[in-house]
């Protein structure tokens, strides 16, 4: 017999009433997303663990800060993780000016055949944080634009344009790596 999956809202209300099981379900459901985001952003496993722990500590201590009308729970949690990661990494880097670069050649297709996943990982890690976070959310975690906008505290259009610029940067970096 299947039990009805509970929504985040239901679980959150149970959690706020002291139900440990409900909190456990929420943790199992969303801690991987928070953890992976923090790991992608920091490139440091231990920092990702600390950020994940602190994020859920915030959920325990101040659950009423979550506003269901403003977005999903995972977007709120990732938003907390984002702030914690940025704080841990120090000052937020300024947005790197994008050097538009033609990606008209077929080197990328060559790259995918010859390069490993490590090349993509390094390219993502080398992105400025403002682009890395949008790639981490939208491409690596397949979060939709709306949730990403909530997590990043910006309009959906900004998410989309940042993602476009981030992907252009990635293609440029991978292309130059390939050519090198």
């Amino acid at each position: 017999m299947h039990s009805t999956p509970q929504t985040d809202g239901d679980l959150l209300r149970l959690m706020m009433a002291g139900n440990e099981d409900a909190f456990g379900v929420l943790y199992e459901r969303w801690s991987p997303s928070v953890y992976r985001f923090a790991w992608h952003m920091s490139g440091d496993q231990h920092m990702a663990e600390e950020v994940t722990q602190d994020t859920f500590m915030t959920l325990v201590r101040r659950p009423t800060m979550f506003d269901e009308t403003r977005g999903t729970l995972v977007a709120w949690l990732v938003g907390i993780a984002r702030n914690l990661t940025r704080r841990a990494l120090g000052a937020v880097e300024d947005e790197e000016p994008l050097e538009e670069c033609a990606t008209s050649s077929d080197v990328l297709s060559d790259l995918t055949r010859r390069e490993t996943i490590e090349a993509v990982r390094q390219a993502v890690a080398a992105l400025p944080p403002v682009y890395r976070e949008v790639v981490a959310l939208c491409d690596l975690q397949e979060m939709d634009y709306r949730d990403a906008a909530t997590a990043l505290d910006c309009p959906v259009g900004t998410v989309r344009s940042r993602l476009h610029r981030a992907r252009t940067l990635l293609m440029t970096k991978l292309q130059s790596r390939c050519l090198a």
Partner: protein
Amino acid sequence: MNGCEAVQEILMDAARGAPVEGGLREHLEGCPECRRRLENERILSAGLAAMASRAVPPASVRNAVMAEFRRANRVTPIRRSVFQRVAMAAGYRPPADGDAERVRPVFQWVAMVAAAAAILLAVFVATRHNPTTHGPEKTAKNVAPVVPARVEAPVTARPPVHATPAVTAKVARPAKRRRVVKVQAPPVDETPEIATEFFEIPYAEPLRPEERVDVFRFEMPRANMAVFGLPVIGGRLDSRVTADVLTGEDGVVRAIRFIR
């Protein structure tokens, strides 16, 4: 070709799984550059998907946050005075912490006075049913045979200062029925103590079968007996009198007795 800039983000969406529709399809048919761009976008998406992690945080993180949850939700017992407990038995419900509306003190006093009157009524009815007694302290010397138990509830005496065998204390009910409740006997002193019967608080919700009850022993000014409408016998008003208060699992007082 014209319009390439306008479709760049749409190309990205298409590479991420969005369907290629009308205007974009037409543009791609006439623009080899954008077709190449779309192909590169798709390759990039595949590369990103390949590096997407399936990692989960280690168990130590889970243990830490669950411990924090337990700590944050630790139940702190609410301490209430005997007067509050008696008033709650009479129907008064104290406001929860953080309630915007507070019950005015005058209503609290009304509830407490009503509780005191209820106890007075209970004592009056009890003494009328047992004409040999003249007050709560004397009734203990003239304990009537125990009525067969209808409800027996395990009791945890608090505080159990001395380990003493369980005894059966009779709870006198003024009008309807009698209840027998097993309670832990109070500490035995050198001089045998004399206790009144447990006077059940009228209008209090009856105990459920097998409901756990607690007995709290208090010392209070003897003058408080007068507040509750009980006769003050054999002592000055400012001396202390011992009382056992029996509460249900909900913390509401169900019965009270006085010890000499």
